[in-house]
């Protein structure tokens, strides 16, 4: 502990000098373009850096850890002031994080964490998947207000951590409310087309009139399900209430038309809180907590969804 | 000599029925120790069925098998092997990627401490093969050796496992002359050891060369058994076919051929065939003679465009033509029946009907299909004209016998109405009846004015139908024989002379 304090002290001694000497230079190692959300995260991170006058060095790892390690080493060699890392996998980071620590460059993890001693990075900015599920469940609890409601669930890819956690959170929120029951649950693989296919089978198996609400682990599946509901001659949003997670532009478009009811934002703005923490640290040495949880904001029909759509549609989703 | 002993194997009244057919009808057969017994008959006569009943591959429906005077009933080929009856087939059924020693001792390798005693096994293999006069490295994979060596290894394995009766089912079908001698020397050694050997083949010359007695089957019945010492080939063929064959060598039509059809000048390809000149006229059969590897097949393939010539020119009726691919050649109404019928000729799973029209359809293009009626008319006409024996035009061609497959291939090309027909080993591996028919067909086509080029290793055959014979050696033309010069003796001399000249 002593040693750590000393290290921080010495870091404090040097870093502010460089920060004052020139604008901040920060390296960002991104996973790659695996999804629309990922693309939006990249866009927002670049915007946040520009807003603060930070020189952002961006490296796309194309889904490969070795590329990320290479990028971090090159950031270290260039002597950047801090490194943002969205790790592609959880393990295998110890060595390169040690190297960063040795050169006293703080590392902030975005969106995912790693299996490494937590003194090897400054903080991790992530959302809480279980909490997202809870917000969705709580919305439905409030919306139904005790009325009986049979729910169908579109799960994410079987076995993936978002699917497990978002299911868990939702179930926690609705437990104890006997009016709410999940009557069917099947995977839609997080994709629009599977969401549509599986919703079709729900509608046939249960009958559209017997489904009161749909909970989808992501918005893409909800968008697919909305089409299935329309093709079955029902009104999504009215006949079947729809709540999903992520807050991608297309779900806001649907909400603007009243075809979906609620979405919980998985914000692509992980860089904002990260850079806030970094600036506070550089200014007066405030150590951020090891985990910064992003806000899981609930959007409902009361929000101006058309405006949210316009705002988000160019982020690269 | 043999009849004074008691037989090692005796079949009494063996019968086998297939639905709607009697495959074997009370067949008797006696095998004496130390004799080579040829089993002869046209395709479908019942040779294979009899062998399969003996080895337990089929269950016989009647009769008994006596081995050393005791009745046996092998239920599988392994069973018969244990009893002492070993079999070697034309297609060597060993494992080509294993070593020779492993193939010999597979399943009964000498062991030491739970491991295969490699060195001991190699020594044993070497000794074993030395007995057969074969000097090879037993540690090499089997596939690195020729088919003949593989055949001998198969025989050695069979003899080691069994040791009383050895059945050789067409062991020499894919061997050349020297290789046949190797296999024959092995057979002689086994004969001296007192084994009874059954020899099945289509080559009558080989039968007379190696066998003591022959049993002829026809339509599932034994027609007769002969001591070969006092018998002629004609006698045997007569037994097999049930009719007197016309004399196979007859008066050759005068070699007054028609106009020049095709002329090749300085035609060849580096590393494949030395450049050569060749002229073929209408109504003429040009024979290509030579040892294996002398360039017979290469010449055929070059002219047909299957191998792309890199020098020389080709003239068709005086006009320069390009022969870059079989399609080019077919466009000029050339046709080629290739040597390797199975790999380059038939399309095994397609029906006989489809095989017959294949070349004609390919020439017409896929978007102009032949009308169904026309297809049937063509197929039926050729089946009749060439006497192709089949159950149905819809059956896959691979189920036909070799001779019938060859006739279908001839039909395929005749259907394209070719002006120039190249035949590469047209009678290889086919039975006597089909053999004679194909030779007659060649004559008929020549009389009709077609130009033919026939490559063959059967010298008598070449002599019978050729109007000219070109002798090849080491991928070069060495001699051309015309008219009365065409005799087997002269062809052999032409090959041999050249060899002597080379040696000097």
């Amino acid at each position: 502990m002593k040693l750590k304090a000393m290290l921080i002290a010495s870091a404090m001694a040097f870093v502010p000098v460089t920060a004052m000497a020139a604008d901040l230079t920060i390296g960002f190692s991104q996973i790659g373009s695996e999804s629309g959300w990922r693309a939006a995260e990249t866009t927002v991170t670049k915007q946040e850096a520009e807003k603060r006058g930070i020189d952002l060095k961006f490296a796309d790892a194309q889904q490969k850890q070795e590329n990320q390690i290479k990028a971090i080493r090159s950031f270290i060699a260039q002597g950047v002031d801090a490194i943002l890392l969205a790790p592609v996998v959880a393990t295998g980071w110890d060595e390169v994080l040690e190297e960063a620590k040795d050169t006293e460059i703080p590392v902030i993890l975005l969106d995912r964490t790693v299996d490494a001693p937590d003194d090897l990075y400054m903080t991790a900015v992530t959302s809480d998947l279980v909490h997202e599920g809870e917000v969705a469940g709580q919305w439905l609890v409030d919306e139904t207000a005790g009325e009986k409601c049979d729910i169908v669930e579109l799960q994410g890819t079987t076995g993936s951590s978002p699917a497990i956690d978002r299911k868990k959170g939702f179930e926690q929120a609705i437990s104890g409310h006997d009016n709410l029951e999940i009557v069917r649950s099947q995977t839609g693989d997080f994709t629009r087309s599977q969401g549509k296919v599986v919703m079709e089978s729900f509608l046939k198996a249960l009958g559209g009139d017997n489904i009161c609400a749909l909970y989808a682990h992501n918005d893409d599946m909800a968008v697919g399900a909305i089409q299935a509901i329309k093709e079955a001659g029902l009104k999504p949003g009215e006949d079947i209430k729809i709540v999903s997670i992520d807050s991608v532009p297309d779900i806001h478009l649907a909400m603007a038309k009243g075809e979906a009811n609620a979405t919980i934002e998985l914000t692509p703005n992980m860089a904002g809180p990260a850079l806030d923490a970094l600036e506070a640290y550089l200014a007066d040495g405030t150590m951020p907590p090891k985990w910064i949880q992003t806000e899981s904001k609930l959007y409902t029909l009361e929000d101006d969804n058309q405006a949210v759509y316009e705002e988000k549609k160019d982020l690269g989703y | 000599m043999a009849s004074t002993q008691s037989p090692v194997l005796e079949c009494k009244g063996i019968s086998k029925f297939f639905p709607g057919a009697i495959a074997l009808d009370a067949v008797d057969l006696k095998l004496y120790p130390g004799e080579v017994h040829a089993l002869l008959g046209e395709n479908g006569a019942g040779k294979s069925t009899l062998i399969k009943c003996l080895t337990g591959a089929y269950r016989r429906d009647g009769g008994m098998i006596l081995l050393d005077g005791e009745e046996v009933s092998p239920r599988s080929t392994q069973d018969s092997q244990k009893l002492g009856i070993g079999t070697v087939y034309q297609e060597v059924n060993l494992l080509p990627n294993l070593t020779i020693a492993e193939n010999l001792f597979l399943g009964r390798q000498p062991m030491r401490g739970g491991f295969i005693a490699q060195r001991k096994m190699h020594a044993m293999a070497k000794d074993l093969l030395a007995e057969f006069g074969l000097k090879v490295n037993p540690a090499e994979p089997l596939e690195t050796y020729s088919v003949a060596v593989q055949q001998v290894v198969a025989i050695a394995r069979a003899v080691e496992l069994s040791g009383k009766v050895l059945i050789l089912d067409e062991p020499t079908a894919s061997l050349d002359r020297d290789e046949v001698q190797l296999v024959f020397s092995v057979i002689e050694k086994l004969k001296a050891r007192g084994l009874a050997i059954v020899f099945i083949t289509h080559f009558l010359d080989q039968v007379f060369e190696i066998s003591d007695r022959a049993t002829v089957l026809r339509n599932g019945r034994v027609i007769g058994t002969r001591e070969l010492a006092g018998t002629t080939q004609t006698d045997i063929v007569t037994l097999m076919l049930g009719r007197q064959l016309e004399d196979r060598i007859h008066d050759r039509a005068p070699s007054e051929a028609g106009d020049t059809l095709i002329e090749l000048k300085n035609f060849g390809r580096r590393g494949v065939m030395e450049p050569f000149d060749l002229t073929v006229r209408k109504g003429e059969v040009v024979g290509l003679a030579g040892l294996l590897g002398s360039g017979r097949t290469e010449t055929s393939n070059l002219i047909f465009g299957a191998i792309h010539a890199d020098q020389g020119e080709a003239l068709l009726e005086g006009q320069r033509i390009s022969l870059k691919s079989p399609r080019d050649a077919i466009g000029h109404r050339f046709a080629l029946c290739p040597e390797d019928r199975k790999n380059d000729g038939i399309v095994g799973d397609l029906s006989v009907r489809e095989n017959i029209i294949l070349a004609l359809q390919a020439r017409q293009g896929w978007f102009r299909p032949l009308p169904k009626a026309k297809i049937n008319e063509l197929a039926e006409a050729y089946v009749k004209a060439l006497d192709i024996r089949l159950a149905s035009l819809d059956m896959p061609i691979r189920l036909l016998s070799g001779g019938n497959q060859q006739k279908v291939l001839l039909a395929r090309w005749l259907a394209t109405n070719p002006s120039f027909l190249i035949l590469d080993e047209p009678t290889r591996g086919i039975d006597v009846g089909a053999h004679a028919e194909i030779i007659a067909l060649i004559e008929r086509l020549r009389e009709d004015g077609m130009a033919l080029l026939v490559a063959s290793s059967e010298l008598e055959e070449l002599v019978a139908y050729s109007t000219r014979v070109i002798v090849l050696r080491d991928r070069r033309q060495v001699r051309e024989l015309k008219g009365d010069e065409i005799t087997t003796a002269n062809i052999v001399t032409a090959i041999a002379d050249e060899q002597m000249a080379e040696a000097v």
Partner: protein
Amino acid sequence: MASQVHSTMKRIMPQLIILIAVLFLNFLVFPDFFRIEFQNGRLFGNLIDVLNRGAPTALLCIGMTLVIATKGIDLSVGAVMAIAGATAASIVVDGHSWQTALLGALAVGALCGFWNGFLVAYLRIQPIVATLVLMVAGRGIAQLITEGTILTFLNPGLIHLGAGTMVGVPTPIVIWVLLGLIVTAVVRKTALGMLIEAIGINESSSRLAGINSRVLIVCVYLISGFCAALAGVIVAADIKGADANNAGLWLELDAILAVVIGGNSLLGGRFSILASLLGALIIQSVNSVILLSGLPPEFNLVIKALLIIAILVIQSPTVKHALYILRASAEPTPPAPAPVQEVKEGTQ
């Protein structure tokens, strides 16, 4: 003519029986399975869903059957679907008509097929390797076109291809049935089918018989690319968006499986498009059983694997032979070997 119908029926009988069995299984888990209603101007029911959702696999397996008949394989079809969907979406998003988008996507698909065929026929690269190139690279190309997002569109003409109906029948069903009929007619009414089979059985013999094998091989890969493009457009139209990451993902394997369940040999030769299409429907019916059963999704892959294994085992030559023996020995007459052996006898 009658004999032709008879032989076709004989060929597809195993597939028909299996399809009926799997459909019956659907009925067991969901008694209303066979009910079809006319609702909102369209046919509505689980059976319709099987036909509709089976469309991508059915379209893919038409081309795949021909490719496999030439002893080839096309691993790139899933990626080509993504490329074609992305192409169609980007064309309508740029404000062009759906006809332009469809033609553009089909042209791109055909081009992809041509590329595969060129690698296989002219450069003599093994089909599995040649098509792997596009399988890996294709999704990247699609992502470049969509710029990594789900490219959403609202063009009603294009959407109609995936989500619309024609006289009450969902458009994808009409498309795959029509294309299946057209391709079958083309290969069977011309000599194309026979020549393709000849190449697959024995390319050397075919070439020496004067068949232009290279051109025909390019041709089958081109058809496969075309079918994949059509499937890609339908999948994109179905969700009103081109999803470069997920469209057609792993569908090449379903297509190959459909061809295999259809009783076509992966070693090339004789083929039946009709049987492959039944294979595609069998796969979709299996998917339907899983969805209708209501079991937790952890069971999905296990159930699918068990059913597919059962189907393939029933079709395996060993089991077929055993069934034959069983039937033969049930009869009073002594067991006779298969008639094939009698004919074969002559060749030895």
